[in-house]
């Protein structure tokens, strides 16, 4: 048994610059800069020099890798954490393990096919990706949707928001040790997924919302199904209150852990529950209303302390608000077309294809060549369960996007993780990661 010589370079693998370098390999000035970078705050008032303890020598600290294969990192997130004892000094998320070049793929797919691609990004909130992409295409086309299409989108998006938050409840509970919560969260989510499957035919990557409307009208009996969901979920949410919210162990694990201030959250481009948990009232549904959210009555849930518990509480109560929204949407659902009657965008109905040769040709052309979108560029942002999901779309006048970029909420929110983790305990890291609710499919795209 031989003790290896003292490692000079503390880098774990040969990947080089993406990793966090050891203190011994870093000059003090560079280290300060890196601390600023890791903290993701500019030097200046927000970074107090006395706050950054660069006097710690390299021998006393240790850099450990958490992930990419770690059950609590929700996929393939890798964190490099510098520890002094049990205290976290620096954290650096290393991402890209799930990168599949979806933005490049998006440039090779027609606008009709595009939804099948974007729906796989943030796989817990697929309808929001489809929705934002479709809205961007529609803005480029300058077409107006029939009201029913928009209301259907809103209904399904709110259901999707609940199902996404339920996964958060499940995984967050599991990460802090309340394993039974995982079973409950996934059980409730299954109800919603069953309904989404009834609508779209697919449980997860629905490809239901498409440019020009939605793929199909709501199925028969949808009102009863939605009513059943609206009846069941709130009672279950009250059970979660008993199980988690008021439970002393859960509170101990989450309160005061991973605190983020409002200034930091805004500076770090955080959106969604991460931003709202700090007390900033910012919800695109209310503040920059899109679709028909301005006709609905709902509250924007905000937290106070910006800690892990607040992020949990914001999401829990957002589900209640979503149920409230769903009830209103069901009441206001108009009748009419579920997709725009623009023959350049919408394929002819199945019945017409049987009868008319022209309709068949038209259908064939739409699905092989797609429709051409006028030249231009547009950015659309909507409120997904994780924050602002945006689509920047450039068209050169052909049938495929020239540039398709999705601004994913988890990608931006992940930047606040080092700030939340700093000074905390390594044992709390799992709870903090979980509270950001990153979905690596969206982060890496």
């Amino acid at each position: 048994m031989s003790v290896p010589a003292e490692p000079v370079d503390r880098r774990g693998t040969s990947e080089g610059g993406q990793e966090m370098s050891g203190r011994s390999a870093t000059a003090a000035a560079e280290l300060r800069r890196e601390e600023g970078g890791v903290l993701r705050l500019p030097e200046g008032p927000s970074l107090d020099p006395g706050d950054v303890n660069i006097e710690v020598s390299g021998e006393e600290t240790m850099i450990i890798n958490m992930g990419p294969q770690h059950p609590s990192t929700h996929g393939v997130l890798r964190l490099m954490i510098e520890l002094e004892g049990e205290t976290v000094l620096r954290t650096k998320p290393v991402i890209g393990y799930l990168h599949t070049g979806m933005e490049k793929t998006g440039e090779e797919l027609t606008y009709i096919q595009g939804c099948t691609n974007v729906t796989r990004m943030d796989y817990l909130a697929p309808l929001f990706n489809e929705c934002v992409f479709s809205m961007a295409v529609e803005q480029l086309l300058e077409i107006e949707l029939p009201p029913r299409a928009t209301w259907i989108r809103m209904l399904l998006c709110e259901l999707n928001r609940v199902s996404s938050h339920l996964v958060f409840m499940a995984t967050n509970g599991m990460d802090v040790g309340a394993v039974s919560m995982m079973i409950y969260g996934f059980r409730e989510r299954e109800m919603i997924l069953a309904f989404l499957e009834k609508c779209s035919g697919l449980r997860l990557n629905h490809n239901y919302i498409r440019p020009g409307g939605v793929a199909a009208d709501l199925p028969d009996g949808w009102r009863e199904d939605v009513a059943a969901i609206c009846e069941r979920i709130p009672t279950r949410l009250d059970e979660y209150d008993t199980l988690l919210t008021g439970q002393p162990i859960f509170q101990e694990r989450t309160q005061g852990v991973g605190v983020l201030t409002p200034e930091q959250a805004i500076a770090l481009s955080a959106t969604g529950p991460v931003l709202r948990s700090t007390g900033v009232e910012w919800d695109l549904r209310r503040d920059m209303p899109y679709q028909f959210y301005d006709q609905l009555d709902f509250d924007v849930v905000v937290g106070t302390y910006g800690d892990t518990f607040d992020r949990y509480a914001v999401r829990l109560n957002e589900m209640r608000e979503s149920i409230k929204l769903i009830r209103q949407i069901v009441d206001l659902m108009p009748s009419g077309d579920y997709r725009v009657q623009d023959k350049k965008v919408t394929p002819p109905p199945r019945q017409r294809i049987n009868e008319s040769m022209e309709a068949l040709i038209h259908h064939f052309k739409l699905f092989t060549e797609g429709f051409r979108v006028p030249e231009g560029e547009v950015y659309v942002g909507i409120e997904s369960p994780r924050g602002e999901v945006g689509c920047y779309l450039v068209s050169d006048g052909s049938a495929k996007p020239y540039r398709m970029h999705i601004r994913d909420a988890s990608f931006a929110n992940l930047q606040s993780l080092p700030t939340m983790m700093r000074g905390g305990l390594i044992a709390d890291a799992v709870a903090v990661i979980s509270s950001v609710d990153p979905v690596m499919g969206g982060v890496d795209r």
Partner: protein
Amino acid sequence: MSDATEVPVPDDAPGPEPELLHGAPMSTSRGQAVVHPDREAYLAVVKALRDEGFDLCADVCGADYLSHPGRPLPEGVVPERFEVVVNLVNRRERRRIRVRVQVPATDARVASLFDLYPGSEAMEREAFDMFGIEFTDHPDLTRILMPEDWEGHPLRKDYSVGRIPVQFKAAAATR
């Protein structure tokens, strides 16, 4: 199939003098405000916008206009191969603005917004990774999505997509 490479300069029929915002020409795209500063003024314009109340940097991304050089731009803006597109949000006035800055291919570098918006850090790294646009004064300009030893920048238009010809020998390339 598309003839994107030969798209002529579009007939820019509405040709009033471009409106200026902090000295940079403005345009609207589908009703959205866009400001086009040049590279030298970029940081100053974004700083002025931030001081004006655009306190949330929603998105930074790159774009490569290699095969679509004739896109509509306001008068006085010289089209270059690359563009850096920044989406800012003014939370108080509840509006957005988009900043598009032209970056030439020969000297693909532009100032980093890190000092103004720390949240642009990962997004600029992504633009660097995907397009090879260098952000000067960025604290940690390394690849973020691709492996460190990757060659090339995947979202560039001249980056091969690794297409495998299978069935139809004469099939045209997808773009």
